[in-house]
């Protein structure tokens, strides 16, 4: 592999990992703070991508679609938390799994009724359509760099929100002792609704900015959901730092797994099984540290 190809793959891996972090970060935030395992998290990613597609066709630009989409997904998160999720805090994981599994089916079918089952493309928005030439034949699209940059900004903002603001302090306190925070006069129900809506908006936003590179298709949410679970298992549940590192690791392993597969592919060394590399990584982490890289021992 020559240097430009390596660089392109590296950038792809980082972009993929950062995007995955945006989705998995929301998942682990919702679990770490609210104790809710949300199988429907991937569905919100898909909803984001479909919102980007339909709103871009309506408004004519992704730049208008994204803010409108964020507002809609926050509203969606608030409604779902109010309608369903808040009833789950007292129930155990089994009920949470079942309810959010049902929610996946509902969202998938509503998507099928509203938007159909076709694959759609979203054009790369205007000032970012250019590519940076690396050699005479190889170039790197600016849009992918922009995705990485946006994800980093969001990761930093998320960190500052949770670790450095008064709101974040209350959220962390609520994760440790719900009753205590409540008895100090803080409306924990409202706070959880905000956290859930934030998680939904993160997933949907990731779906929106990913739409131009990944295209928009049914089932895209479930693919992401499984990878998010792998991220959480590797990184350690509830740990946002663990999610970031695990997501980057998965980005690297998956991207380079596929490239190496191409090269060994001529030797026919099970080229189809390159998709397994991510799961092998997970198996290795489970053998080494069952609680994940940054997980607390339970």
């Amino acid at each position, binding site marked *: 592999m020559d240097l430009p190809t390596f660089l392109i793959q590296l950038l792809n891996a980082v972009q993929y990992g950062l995007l995955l972090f945006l989705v998995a970060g929301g998942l682990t935030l919702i679990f770490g703070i609210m104790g809710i395992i949300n199988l429907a998290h991937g569905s919100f990613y898909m909803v984001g991508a479909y919102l980007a597609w339909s709103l871009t066709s309506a408004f004519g630009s992704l730049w208008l679609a994204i803010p409108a989409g964020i507002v809609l997904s926050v509203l969606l998160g608030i409604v779902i938390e109010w309608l369903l999720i808040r009833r789950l805090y007292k129930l155990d994981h089994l009920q949470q799994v079942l309810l959010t599994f049902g929610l996946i089916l509902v969202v998938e079918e509503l998507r099928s009724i509203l938007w159909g089952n076709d694959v759609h493309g979203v054009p790369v928005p205007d000032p970012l359509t250019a590519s940076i030439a690396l050699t005479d034949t190889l170039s790197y699209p600016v849009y992918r760099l922009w995705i990485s940059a946006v994800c980093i900004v969001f990761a930093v903002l998320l960190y500052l929100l949770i670790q450095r603001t008064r709101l974040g302090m209350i959220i962390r306190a609520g994760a440790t002792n719900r009753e205590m925070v409540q008895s100090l006069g803080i409306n924990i129900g409202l706070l959880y609704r905000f956290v859930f809506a934030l998680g939904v908006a993160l997933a949907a936003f990731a779906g929106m900015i990913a739409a131009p590179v990944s295209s928009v298709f049914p089932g895209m949410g479930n693919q992401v959901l499984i990878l998010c679970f792998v991220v959480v298992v590797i990184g350690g549940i509830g740990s946002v730092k663990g999610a970031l590192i695990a997501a980057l690791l998965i980005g690297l392993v998956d991207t380079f797994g596929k490239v190496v597969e191409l090269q060994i592919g001529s030797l026919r060394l099970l080229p*189809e099984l390159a998709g397994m590399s991510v799961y092998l990584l997970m198996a290795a982490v489970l053998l080494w540290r069952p609680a994940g890289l940054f997980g607390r021992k339970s």
Partner: protein
Amino acid sequence: MAAGRPVREKILNRHVAWWVAAVVVAGVLAALPFFGEKFTVQFVTRVLIMAIFAMSLNLLVGFTGLVSLGHAAFFGVAGYCLALASPQYQAASLWTSLPLAMLASGLLALVIGLLVLRTSGVYFIMATLAFAQMVYFVFHDSGIAGGSDGIYIYARPDASILGWRPLDLEQFADLHFLVLALFLFAFGFIRLLRDSLFGRVIAGIRVNEHRMRSLGFATFRYKLACFVVAGMIAGLAGYLAAVQYGVVNPEMLGWHLSGTVLMMVILGGMGTLTGPVIGAAAMLLLEMVLQSLPETGGVGLGRHWQLPMGIVIVLVALFLPRGLAGLLARRRAPVADHD
């Protein structure tokens, strides 16, 4: 002594009633092909197959307290095993391919179990789902087993032993008899298991694993054994499903089926013997009813039957956490509720 007798009699009566009910139900199911229509018999066969599958998951979820969200992997692998063991356009032998398929499921369960049982709680849910998806992608992406289209099984397995052929599985009635016999076998086996020392230990693990460990039980080994047994019984169901449909595809391994079978267990009542059977019957009936829903307000509800199904699942999770069996039990004995 004086107080003991009525109680003992009551227990004895309940025992007799259970056996009478079991024999009557088994008798009706066995007689079904003689008076039922082909469609009905095939539907009941399908219910029995899914009931075996749900019973196997109940071993984990209901008896041991392990919420597995990847149980379809063991179901599907056994089906693929039959498809790959069948020579093209010819039948495989039932007596070799069935043990082979169950063995394959058991081996897969052993490998996955060794990894996922190192985790617990939510991790366990996520890890089982992820490893099952890995198996899904192996069959979906690789060319060894027909990729995303799957493989057709052109001839049902041959049940002859030394020239004698007790069953012709191409006949729907004979297939029904085989499935019923294996269903009763699996049901009886799980009942024996539940009442054995092994069953007591896994029940103890569900309630308090630390305490069981302090008592000197190697809980990991018990959980692993349970995981493997559950995987093999799921394999039995997957094998039979492949025989009935005559085709295997990656959806047999997918998380959608894992979620559906979990729903069957909970809908029927987890941790009970008959719950998963009731749940499987209820889910398949519901599925059939929903698929035949008429067009309402410009939306073909029958085509989008997963929408009402999803709503039902949400409602069951919220309002029926102990399933239909729990509903009946609560009505009969409202005080006996202590979790």
